[in-house]
């Protein structure tokens, strides 16, 4: 069973759109006055029961996209649409209403839970807050909390309610964070590196849980990760980010098996692969790190590291090129047709 993959087969592409990012741009302003365009013109959509993986290295802006979608940052330009309606987050009521629908799960389960409170407290709060009524009596809260814990496979739930974060393993804490997100009854779950702090044998369980919840609750799931291998296994679509931009997007299998953008190719060749017998050193050029985001930048940010870069890559913004059905890359090299193979 490979989680989301099993969901792919039985499903047609007719699932409804829940959340859409439309040309999101976020420019941070440093105290020195320097501006940092962390996210530039990012568009993507999350659909019911589907997983979209947002893949990129640290500093690529992938977490900022998740935060923009969660309403934790306001975009500099562009907008977020929930079920087709533009999202306005003015005032507490609107924010709370939005938080009920769109929940975020953070990377570090060791700091996202309050060590002074029991698991029960962590679940009761969102239940009370988002059910919009204080009429929920204690027994009902306990029952729902326990049920939520069982939904994330912490069984028996009632037993785990009494525990404190320090009494739980990393994987169990992450399950509690997921249960807490579910307590609000969301339609969208934004998972920001949900397994990168966990051990290999634990990761699989959490990813399967997320894939299962996506299917059962018909959630739109954004899986933010730097690990394109897990993205391949647990998502339907992959969007690859580099320096604040989505450079390639498409069905997970197409993007990982036939990557078109040179950056995606680099990313994939960097993944440890036991099938590769010989140690293949990286091209020297790729060693250059992601530079500062401010100041003068080439039109294609990847150009300085790209083995195929031409002069126009530095000067003119690259076009979006369709590689195959639903598979797009933003690259001059792909546009010139050298790379497009089927």
């Amino acid at each position: 069973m490979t989680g989301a993959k099993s969901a792919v087969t039985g499903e047609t592409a007719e699932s409804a759109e829940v959340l859409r990012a439309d040309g999101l741009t976020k420019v941070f302003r440093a105290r020195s006055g320097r501006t940092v365009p962390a996210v530039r013109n990012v568009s993507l959509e999350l659909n019911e029961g589907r997983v979209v993986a947002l893949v990129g290295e640290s500093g690529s802006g992938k977490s900022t996209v998740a935060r923009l979608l969660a309403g934790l940052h306001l975009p500099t330009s562009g907008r977020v649409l929930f079920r087709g309606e533009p999202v306005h987050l003015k005032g507490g009521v609107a924010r709370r209403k939005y938080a009920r629908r769109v929940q975020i799960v953070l990377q570090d389960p060791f700091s996202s839970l309050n060590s002074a409170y029991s698991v029960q407290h962590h679940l009761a709060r969102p239940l009370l807050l988002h059910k919009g009524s204080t009429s929920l009596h204690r027994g009902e809260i306990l029952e729902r909390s326990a049920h939520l814990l069982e939904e994330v496979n912490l069984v028996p739930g009632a037993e785990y309610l009494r525990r404190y974060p320090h009494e739980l393993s990393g994987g169990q804490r992450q399950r509690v964070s997921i249960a807490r997100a579910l307590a609000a009854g969301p339609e969208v779950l934004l998972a920001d590196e949900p397994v990168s702090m966990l051990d290999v044998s634990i990761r699989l369980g959490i990813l399967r849980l997320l894939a299962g919840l996506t299917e059962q609750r018909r959630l739109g799931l954004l899986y933010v990760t730097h690990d394109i291998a897990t993205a391949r296994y647990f998502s339907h679509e992959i969007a690859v980010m580099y320096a604040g931009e989505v450079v390639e997007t498409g069905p997970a299998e197409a993007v990982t098996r036939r990557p078109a953008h040179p950056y995606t190719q680099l990313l994939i060749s960097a993944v440890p692969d036991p099938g590769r017998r010989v140690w293949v050193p990286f091209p020297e050029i790729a060693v250059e790190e992601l530079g500062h985001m401010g100041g003068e930048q080439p039109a294609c940010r990847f150009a300085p590291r790209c083995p195929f870069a031409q002069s126009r890559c530095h000067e003119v913004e690259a076009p979006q090129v369709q590689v195959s059905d639903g598979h797009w890359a933003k690259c001059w090299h792909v546009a010139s047709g050298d790379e497009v193979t089927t």
Partner: protein
Amino acid sequence: MAGIGQSRRGDIRDGNGDVLLVRGLEVTYGRSEQKIRAVWNTSFSVGSGEFVGIAGESGCGKSTLAFAVARLLRGSGRITSGEVIWFGDGLPGVDLVSADDQTLRKIRWSGISVVMQAAMNSMNPVLTVQSQIDDVMRAHDPSLSRRDREERVRTLLKMVRIPVDRAGAYPHQLSGGMRQRAMIALAVALSPRLVILDEPTTALDVVMQRVVLDEIHELQQTLGFSVIFITHDLPLLVEAADRILVMYAGTIVESGVASELYERPMHPYTCGLTASSPRVSGDVVELTGIRGSPPSLKELPPGCAFAPRCDRAINKCTEEVPELAPRNWDSGSGAREAACHLYPPVVGLAASENGGGGS
């Protein structure tokens, strides 16, 4: 002890010998009642120029093992039994466990150097990269002149592809990847025979992880040191290491040549690890993973520590601790080292009466 190690152990003085031999190592934390055995009954060897990978999950004792080998245990951690024999340049073995401070100081940096897990934060924030490397060289090799040292710093930084004009930078002015590479430059500054790297790439993203690994490989080729590389990432080791040791709950449960160990894992834990990592190439295969979570070192289950999570466990597994020994693999394609009752030990060894389990 390793079959590979055994064949090498005869000639310890020349380049083909071991640089390190660990025998029956046990490390405990805490006092009598609250004592935790973080590492127990652990034996392995590292050959000259060999890249040995140690794979295991958090809490399996892999970092404690590295600290113990380098005699850097802190707090209540103590080596309670076993030996760590170090074979310096042409010298007879020195047991690091009983070595005095003076001997240890001679061996550190120039014999064994360690790159810690938190290497990104283990540089001194108020000293430039250059002066930190200079510091180490001055303290451990007073024969080098100022000019020699400057020259060496430049060469080292070039080796790890840090632009020479960054030598005067402070750690916070470098990116994570660069800091890690600076740490590696520091570790090889005095041409040690063994470099121990504890999760050196864990905090980096895949591209930078690859770059750092490339660098370690390249440095190893040019300088010829041995490597102990500790990580939780088994696929990474399969590509990078010559030999892999898999640790679980404080001890080694399997050891073998990297590619063999990955392709035909013996111990059910190793099987579980290999079936937990999705791959980017090839077809999408079923990932089975491992159920449950690792045991607490405070209260290890009786018998094999992995038995409660093991689908193939037999009665014996909960009764008797399996020894790491050469065992016969079903297909008859030669023995490998594993600590698992499912495989019969190679005849001629102490525990030869057990033939059950196998098949």
